[in-house]
């Protein structure tokens, strides 16, 4: 077999993988424009389901709740995470390794366990279910991602820049504002987008922590699916996929994914 043939075969294989990854999503999107309520073919184009969606107060309010929870979570997780990343980068102290290792349980432990544990604890301290509990949980899940992404950006930061600023008389806060943050800004933006995605797409933890009738969009979709599919769900799902993919494309631009810069 020639190398050129193998290369073509390889590209075809990647194409197959992409087909596997995207075909169901595209089918779902197509069905949201199909007139048949039971996904029957032949395909006939309609935007009825989106129109219906616009009138569905339950879905709209859940969507709106998901968005503003994600915005709050992003703001909190990004600022706390950036502060922690800078401290982990700038200072040396005993126990620093431990703090870095502690970031991994929230990422590595299945959300089912984290979610149920949060439910138990929040009930134990009298907080119970509801939006505050959801925000508390989402921030905790998003924080490690922010710290990992911002810290990754900091590794390319030249430490002597901070030293130079100090030698010129700048206080730690002035250094952070004028030298450090401008450099890690792409990392902060990428970390923020990750945080938004973790919260906006979060199903498992929201599922255990949100109050019935006061749920986020993914939870509402889950409970609706279990009652039976409707193209309306296709429509909102299509919107969600489009939004979260758009956000991740932005994040990829800011976190040096392709290695440019």
């Amino acid at each position: 077999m020639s190398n050129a043939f193998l290369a073509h075969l390889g590209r075809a294989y990647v194409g197959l993988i992409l087909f596997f990854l995207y075909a169901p999503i595209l089918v779902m999107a197509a069905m949201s424009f199909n007139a048949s309520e039971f996904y029957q073919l032949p395909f006939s184009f309609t935007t009825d389901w989106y129109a219906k969606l616009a009138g569905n107060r339950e879905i709209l309010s859940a969507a709106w709740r998901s968005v503003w929870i994600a915005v709050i979570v992003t703001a909190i997780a990004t600022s706390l995470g950036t502060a922690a990343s800078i401290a982990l980068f700038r200072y040396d102290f005993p126990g620093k390794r431990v703090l870095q290792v502690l970031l991994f349980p929230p990422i590595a432990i299945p959300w089912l366990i984290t979610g149920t544990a949060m439910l138990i604890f929040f009930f134990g301290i009298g907080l119970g279910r509801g939006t505050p509990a959801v925000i508390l949980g989402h921030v905790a899940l998003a924080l490690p991602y922010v710290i990992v992404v911002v810290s990754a950006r900091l590794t390319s930061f030249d430490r002597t820049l901070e030293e130079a600023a100090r030698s010129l008389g700048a206080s730690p806060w002035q250094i952070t504002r004028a030298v450090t943050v401008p450099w890690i800004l792409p990392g902060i933006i990428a970390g923020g987008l990750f945080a938004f995605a973790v919260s906006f797409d979060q199903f498992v933890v929201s599922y255990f922590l949100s109050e019935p009738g006061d749920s986020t969009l993914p939870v509402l979709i889950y409970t609706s699916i279990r009652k039976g599919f409707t193209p309306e769900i296709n429509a909102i799902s299509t919107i969600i996929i489009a939004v979260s993919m758009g956000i991740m494309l932005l994040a990829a631009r800011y976190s040096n994914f392709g290695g440019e810069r």
Partner: protein
Amino acid sequence: MAMVRVEHLVKTYGAARALDDVTLEFPDGGFFGLLGPSGSGKTTLLRAIAGFVLPETGRVFIDDEPVENVPVEKRGIGMVFQNYALFPNMTVAENVAFGLAVRKVTEAEKKRRVAEALELVQLAAFGARKPHQLSGGQRQRVAMARAIVTQPRVLLLDEPLSALDKALRVDMQIELKRIQREIGITTIFVTHDQEEALTLSDRIGILKDGRLIRHGPPREVYDDPQDSFTATFLGDARIFSGTVEAGGLRLADGTLVPGVRTPTVAVRPENLHLSVAEPDLPCRLQARLGQKIFGGALGTCLLDWRGEVIKVLGRDADFRDLPESGPVWVGWRPEHSIQMSG
């Protein structure tokens, strides 16, 4: 008067002593070169004066004020870093203005002083450029301008020229010296390049394994290194050991080096003379010529003396008449015998 003074500084990293009881004075307005091999503690000493390194014991004075408990940003220092550490997100003018901005200097005053500083380093026209648009030498000048614009009490240079190529380095040495003279600032700089240290400094200090071995004016230290480490580190030297007798030092091959009262003696290769016939010099020994190396105006001869190498430097013309190999005499004048105390 000493602008900077350190007393009994000790800094350890694990088991390694980066600074081992270092006491040293840096005279006001002087250009002081700290010299030593890598790991000798020279950079640690500089960073301890700056405040980036906090020694376990010992004292640091700037302008007679103890500064051990003063953070870097309040010590009133200017520093030039090895890689210049120019802020990539700011223009040249903003970089230079940074130290003034954090001191809340008025806008007009800031502008005037930045222009002055850029003028001094001959970069008046480059204020609007970003660091990545500058050449290595220009970056070095910006780093200088940024460090001195705040009128620090002391200027610290960490291997300031090591990132430049050789030709540029020589130009910048002259430039550095000119700027330092013009503003008369006490300057301490770290280098591993002995030639650079000898050219720039009016005093040098030599460190080894965290200890200060020797300090003083460069010529004094060069002419009388006193110990074999200094002799070989600062310039080149051939060390001979033997036993001290009434008449001088008796070497292993029986040669007597007259006038030497120490068990070791060093001779600089440029002070050695080669001849086929026995020379009329009181200090002389016999060796075999191993190799002649042509180096343009100057040449090098490598001799074999009892299985060891002796290097002789001289004008190529002096070596032209020598045979390619064979027995030769090496001689030197008694005043070029450097007696070693350690």
